[in-house]
């Protein structure tokens, strides 16, 4: 591929790797962008070759539905990272919101009874809690001016210990009757496509549009690229930054709404390491960790790569299960290498 002469884009890509956002004119994904896509295609081919059931509808649904939680969170994370921030608290936040949501629904049960209004109330509480948690992170970053890494490292510990406390060290379980009514939100869907997959797809499309075709997306890239210049260009830097954290909080709430019906419970180990998976997916997808450039569809591919590795390792029995982590690590690094080396050598 590198022999196709594209002098202008090459320069733009080189510059992008350093400081500036990409030239807005490039509609087609550049060569570097194809790295993760290539990795995804290779993984799918490998999976299909290794196990005949890999491409069965059941397995595809499983993998996509499993990806949906991390996926929705990772789309939000793309905006936070693009604007130069970071959020380490999302995994604990999901566990905390799940705990609050379940406790609230159990508490409302006697007065509201088992029914759709109770489920809707639970969903509203989850979104509300996500909004507040994101707002808290965002305000600490923008108003108190603390490094996002430190703020969210702190809130990560706070949310994690709060959910352990709420659960009294055990597990918070949704009332059995409510659970039966709520269950289809994870397990069934529309036209054979499970609800979490639909929700993830909608979030991804909306995210892609917001990043590429709205002022909000452009501001995020401008701020991540150089916040001083953005400020002098009359961008309300603090407000946009705050909005990215609130957006992420809401998406964590949405992910929780899809997560709770799956097992109907939350505990101190819910959502463990989701933050790192989400961040890894964002970076694999081609968003710059230091901000300034975001690629939502790349994030979606990153999430799918991560879930597929897990799925293939179990379906294929290739290596000792002790080595699963090694394979995952190698593929993550390779996916990024593939993308970076193309952008600098093309």
């Amino acid at each position, binding site marked *: 591929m590198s022999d196709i002469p594209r002098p202008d884009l090459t320069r733009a890509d080189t510059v992008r790797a350093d400081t500036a956002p990409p030239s807005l004119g490039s509609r087609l994904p550049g060569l570097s962008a194809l790295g993760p896509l290539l990795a995804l295609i290779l993984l799918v081919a490998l999976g299909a070759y290794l196990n005949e059931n890999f491409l069965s509808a059941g397995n595809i649904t499983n993998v996509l539905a499993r990806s949906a939680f991390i996926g929705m969170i990772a789309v939000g994370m793309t905006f936070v990272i693009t604007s130069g921030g970071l959020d380490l608290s999302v995994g604990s936040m999901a566990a905390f919101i799940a705990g609050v949501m379940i406790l609230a629904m159990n508490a409302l049960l006697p007065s509201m009874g088992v029914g759709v209004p109770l489920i809707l109330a639970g969903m509203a509480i989850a979104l509300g809690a996500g909004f507040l948690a994101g707002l808290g992170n965002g305000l600490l970053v923008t108003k108190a001016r603390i490094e996002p890494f430190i703020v969210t490292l702190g809130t990560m510990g706070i949310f994690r210990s709060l959910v352990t406390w709420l659960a009294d*060290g055990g597990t918070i379980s949704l009332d059995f009757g409510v659970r039966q009514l709520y269950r289809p939100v994870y397990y069934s869907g529309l036209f054979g496509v499970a609800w979490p997959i639909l929700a993830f797809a909608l979030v991804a499309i909306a995210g892609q549009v917001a990043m590429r075709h709205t002022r909000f997306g452009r501001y995020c890239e401008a701020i991540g690229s150089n916040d001083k210049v953005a400020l002098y260009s009359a961008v309300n830097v603090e407000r946009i930054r705050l909005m990215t954290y609130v957006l992420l909080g809401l998406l964590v709430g949405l992910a929780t709404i899809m997560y709770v019906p799956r097992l109907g419970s939350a505990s101190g180990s819910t959502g463990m390491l989701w933050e790192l998976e989400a961040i890894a997916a964002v970076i694999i997808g081609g968003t710059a960790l230091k901000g300034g450039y975001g690629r939502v569809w790349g994030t979606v591919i990153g999430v799918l790569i991560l879930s597929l590795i897990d799925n293939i390792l*179990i379906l294929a029995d290739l290596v000792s299960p002790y080595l699963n982590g090694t394979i995952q690590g190698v593929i993550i690094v390779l996916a990024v290498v593939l993308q970076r080396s193309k952008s600098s050598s093309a």
Partner: protein
Amino acid sequence: MERRTFLTTAAIGAATAATGVSLPAMAQGKKAVIGVSIPSATHGFMGGLNWHAQDTIKRLKATYTNLEFVLATAGAVGKQVNDIEDMVATRNIDALVVLPFESEPLTSPVKAVKDAGKWVTVVDRGLSQAGIEDLYVAGDNTAFGRVSGEYFKANLKPGAKIVVLRGIPTTLDNERVEAFQAAIAGSGIEILDMQHGNWNRDKAFSVMQDYLSKHKQIDAVWAADDDMAIGVMEAIAQSGRQKEMWIVGGAGMKQIIKRVMDKDPQIPVDVSYPPALISTALEVTALNFVSATPVYGRFIIGSTLITAENAAQFYFPDSPF
């Protein structure tokens, strides 16, 4: 249900202080102080262990007025070492009951306590050097695997196919799995797959989903843990294959024990590995200070098969686990 763990702990501390101040004359001589250091409630089993520790301390304090307890829970190895040093330095403990977070790093701090002439009870995870503790109380991981394996052997026909979920890769997990494999050896049962579910519901759920898409025939699942059994059950329900296979978990989570009691065909039995083993350690240690009963040595709590008949004695509806 006691939800506010740290408030309860604080209350115990306050009660201790109050008794110590107001009733000095009542004690027969000096009060014995027992320090208890355990990992904090980060997952189901430890949550149950914390609950049983607090429950037992409450009861022992009411029974024996000359005993005092200091309870500290630690979320990391370093914190546990600090806790133990603080107990010796500031609370002047007479005995230490410790469930080491990890064996290696806790060995020398606990040895220091022993060298200072204190009584030491080690719970569940042994220290890396033999002979330090006066009393060792633990569950039996080999029996845990063996009892599960024996149930599989007795209830499946030769040629039956099973899948196994393993825990976090540790020696403890290896002991269980090796004993399980030894117990089913020669039975003609085929283990199709063994992957790590990390004692986690979500992970077990997705591993089981993959097992189900990979294998057409599965007759039984050894989930090896009750949290994992819950995830496995959901994955099976999703595939609609509930009638085809049964599941054996392990530990003694109340939701699972309830199903065994109710004769759920999907969960016919459970295998105990009780978080209440901390209660055994506390009770036996207390005996040393209130009586002349000899209590040094090793106390290994067997893993037994929990069936519909005996499930009631393993059922603690108030415990969070």
